[in-house]
């Protein structure tokens, strides 16, 4: 008999079955593509399922902070404590909330008239409030004895003050109203006053990265840049309509976004104010407030149409829209510093807390859950341009008044485009030039 070597597949069941009931099952894997046929259609089906489930689990509303007796006018985030929020109302009341339990920890009447703006100092120990009674009051964040309820410091200003913001490192803060004024805690008079033109400013914000840079929204439809070390303002850019609010990108020092009355938000680069980097369209009414996420990649905008929209920094359309029947005109929006929640204060005395990513599961995820969610995310990204997947991912239910407003705005825009195209088609070539969209909304840039 000639020598024969025969080998056959012979599996030992002990290698493939679990030893005891308390073990996990054994799953040998083989990634050979011939064992996994029809890869592309299966991935497509999984992507469809992922997108549909995302919409199923998209329940962004978490809860509301109830307590104010008049509309909420301003919100302030504590710089180091995630669960502390200060809010001011139209009746001069300031409330400090604990976000984890959604309860008010402290409330007191701070001003006669509106509380125009609130701002925490970077250390987090005190916060400053500015009101319609021309006072700037500094309060303690933590109250241990009844004496601490009184303001640490009260400054009287000559003119109405409408906004306050604090320098990142130095103990100076800026207020805006008639002019932009720089104050120091210990002095009773402003250490510097910036004047440019006659018009008043209504929103001011310090850059947290380039510490000395300051920007303000003025009522002459402009956005003015200041340097706190200089004596005068730097430059300004004038737009078609007034900007309501401004927010600096916390990751990129030279980028800021303004919320404008013409339903858009504009992202500018400080180095080139001639035209915005990006125009973010989506709202159907004036945009009231804007705040960046701590990652710098997204921002939230609240508008006069009663919705909150979340935009990505580089995209022109909103990623998500939050609305409730009970939420009326928004006055302020904030993105919390753990990048997870969005707070919106509105006219009807409520501060609402939303998830930043509507279908995110809060809480600790088990490793398998996390891998499954990551897989879904990458699938959605891979098939993002497929018409069916895109349709489902994009779809948001929106209240009727907004839907009607959107349709109206769409016809208006189409009409403008069509008219221009017709004009171009029927006139001498070159007579009607192509003006990029970004340039259209800027009137001029000044030094």
């Amino acid at each position, binding site marked *: 008999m000639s020598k024969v070597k025969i080998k*056959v597949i012979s599996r030992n069941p002990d290698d493939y079955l679990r030893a005891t009931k308390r073990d996990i099952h054994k799953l*040998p894997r083989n990634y050979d593509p011939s064992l996994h046929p029809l890869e592309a259609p299966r991935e497509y089906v999984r992507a469809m399922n992922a997108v549909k489930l995302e919409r199923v689990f998209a329940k962004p509303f978490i809860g509301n902070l109830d307590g104010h007796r008049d509309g909420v006018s301003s919100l302030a985030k504590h710089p180091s404590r995630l669960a502390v929020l200060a809010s001011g109302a139209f009746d001069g009341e300031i409330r400090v909330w604990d976000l984890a339990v959604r309860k008010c920890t402290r409330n007191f009447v701070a001003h006669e008239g509106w509380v125009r703006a609130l701002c925490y100092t970077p250390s987090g120990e005190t916060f400053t409030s500015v009101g319609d009674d021309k006072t700037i009051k500094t309060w303690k964040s933590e109250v241990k004895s009844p004496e601490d309820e009184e303001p640490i410091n009260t400054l009287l200003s000559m003119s109405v003050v409408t906004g306050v913001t604090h320098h990142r490192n130095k103990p100076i803060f800026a207020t805006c109203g008639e002019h932009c004024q720089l104050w120091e805690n210990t002095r009773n008079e402003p250490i510097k006053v910036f004047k440019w033109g006659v018009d008043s400013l209504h929103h001011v914000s310090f850059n947290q990265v380039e510490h000395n840079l300051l920007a303000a929204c003025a009522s002459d439809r402009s956005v003015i840049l200041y340097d706190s070390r200089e004596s005068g303002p730097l430059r300004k850019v004038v737009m078609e309509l007034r900007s309501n609010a401004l927010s600096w990108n916390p990751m990129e020092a030279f980028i800021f976004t303004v919320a404008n009355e013409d339903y858009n938000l504009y992202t500018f680069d400080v180095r080139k104010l001639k035209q915005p980097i990006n125009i973010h369209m989506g709202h159907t009414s004036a945009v009231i407030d804007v705040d960046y996420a701590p990652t710098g990649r997204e921002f939230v905008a609240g508008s006069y149409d009663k919705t909150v929209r979340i935009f990505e920094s580089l995209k022109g359309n909103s990623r998500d829209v939050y609305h409730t029947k009970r939420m009326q005109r928004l006055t302020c929006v904030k993105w919390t510093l753990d990048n997870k929640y969005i707070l919106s204060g509105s006219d009807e005395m409520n501060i609402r807390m939303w998830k930043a990513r509507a279908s995110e599961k809060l809480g600790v995820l088990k490793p398998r859950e996390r891998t499954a969610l990551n897989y879904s995310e990458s699938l959605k990204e891979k098939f993002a341009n497929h018409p069916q997947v895109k349709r489902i991912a994009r779809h948001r239910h929106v209240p009727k008044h907004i839907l009607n407003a959107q349709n109206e705005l769409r016809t208006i825009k189409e009409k403008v*485009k069509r008219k221009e195209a017709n004009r171009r088609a029927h006139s001498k070539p070159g007579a009607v030039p192509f003006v990029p969209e970004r340039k259209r909304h800027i009137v001029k840039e000044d030094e």
Partner: protein
Amino acid sequence: MKNPKKKENKRYFDTKTEDKGQKTTTDNKEVEVFNIKITPELLRTHKYKKNDKKGFKKPIQKKDNSKFKGKAPIDPQKLELHSRGEGVGKGVRHPLHAEKLKKKERKFNYAQEQAARAEILLTEDHGALEVDEDSKTTAISQKIIAENVDISAAAKIFELDLDFGPYRAKYSKNGRHLLLGSNKGHLAAFDWVTKKLHFEINVMESIHDISWLHVETMVAAAQKEWLYMYDNTGTEIHCIKRMDKILRMEFLPYHFLLAAVNEFGFMSWLDISVGEIVGHYNNRLGRTAVMTQNPYNATICIGNSKGVVSLWSPTVKDPLAKILCHKTPLTAITVDNRGMYMATSGVDRSMKIWDIRNLDGPLQDYRLRSAPVHLEFSQKDMLAVGLDDVVEIYNDCCSKTTEKPYLRHRMGKAINNFKFCPYEDVLGIGTRNGFTSILVPGSGEPNFDALESNPFQTKKQRKEAEIKALLDKIPAELITLNPFDITEVDVPSMQDQMEAKKKLLKMDYTPRQKKKRNGKTFVARRKIIKEVARKEFIEQAKEAQKLLNLPEAQPAKKPSFGVLDRFVSNPKTKK
């Protein structure tokens, strides 16, 4: 690395005097404004900084650590196996998008490398058969194999002597369970490894074909009249009367479709998850019993009596492709599981191997002793040919021409059909008098993927797998010749979209009819417009005909019978 042309970019707060030691107070100092003209060149060089240091390059000093040689080299064949195609390369013009694409491609390459490296974790090894140089592998019979192999593997060689007519045998997807159905109605399912019987019934009718469904608890039997479905206890769960007189059935596991071909040539696809018939039409090929599925793209291949193989999909009423294979009627057809090779055999005793994806010409052409009854590819591309009562298994017959088979097994009984068991080196043969199982070393895939099909599934795992499979069920509309079609850009509709956009900017709309529409003139005008449109259409049709050089349809000359013409029946007037 400074470009000598580029100016040093000065920040707006830089002062002219550069005193690095001194700490300058920035309170009341005059700031000089530098006008940096931003030119497109500056932007380009600044934004998309490429690492093309045209100056001097620092040579990368290779650390010669002979102790630490770095990562293990990967077998290029394995790397090729896991590749998902070439990249887009330099197709993208915009530098930002090109960078993004580069990053993505890096990820793909990394995944490919990791998958190739993960092959080391595979535990089992292929079967093999080695003989001395002077002897042939065909001389090795099952007896010798049984002697040389361990006892548990030898137990896989068994024979069942059953009455009740020629048997058809099918293995379940994970290769653990076996279903036998006979022409005289005997239907049995059992776990052939442990020899545990699930059920054994006689349906009292002839069974033409059987099939496992997605789990081993459901089977389908195409009986004399209709299609029946049975449970794993033998209870009849469904009788589908819409699918009648079925000749052959195939189950498409990822689409949950049971495809069947009829005696009259009707093809139907039944979605067993919802119970709907997805496609049902006549393939106009007449009675064909030669049918198989292409597992790569889930199309059904049907062999014709004219020697043509056609590929069918449920939603398209015409064949996706037709290949003229033989000049004689086909007797058997099979496709390998990667969808690369198709083996067909005809009445003229020839067997041809085709490359399905190219469809140029036969790769190989073999002459056999007689017309094969059945053909089957194994997971490792071994081809089993069933001739009369002998099964010949060819090892590597697709890429090169082999003269001798790898193994031969002579059985006394006539072969009905056979199937390779999925993850084992076993070939199960259904014969006239029962069932035989033989060992074919090296035919099965040794390492299975438990998330695809697990022969050692427990009941719970089976239930979970069923749910996951249902969630991943592919809709029947996606069955096409190339399964990767879904990932490709639909160029025609994109072109349509672009054109629609262009049109929007230069819209030419029909002007409103300002004149009053009088009733009579309005009707007359519409008539005229209709006439004109019709004439135009006719002219266009004529021109198209001329272009195609179609001969004008001449009326066929009727045979004239002279006076008796009046009695010739006109097929048009006849009802």
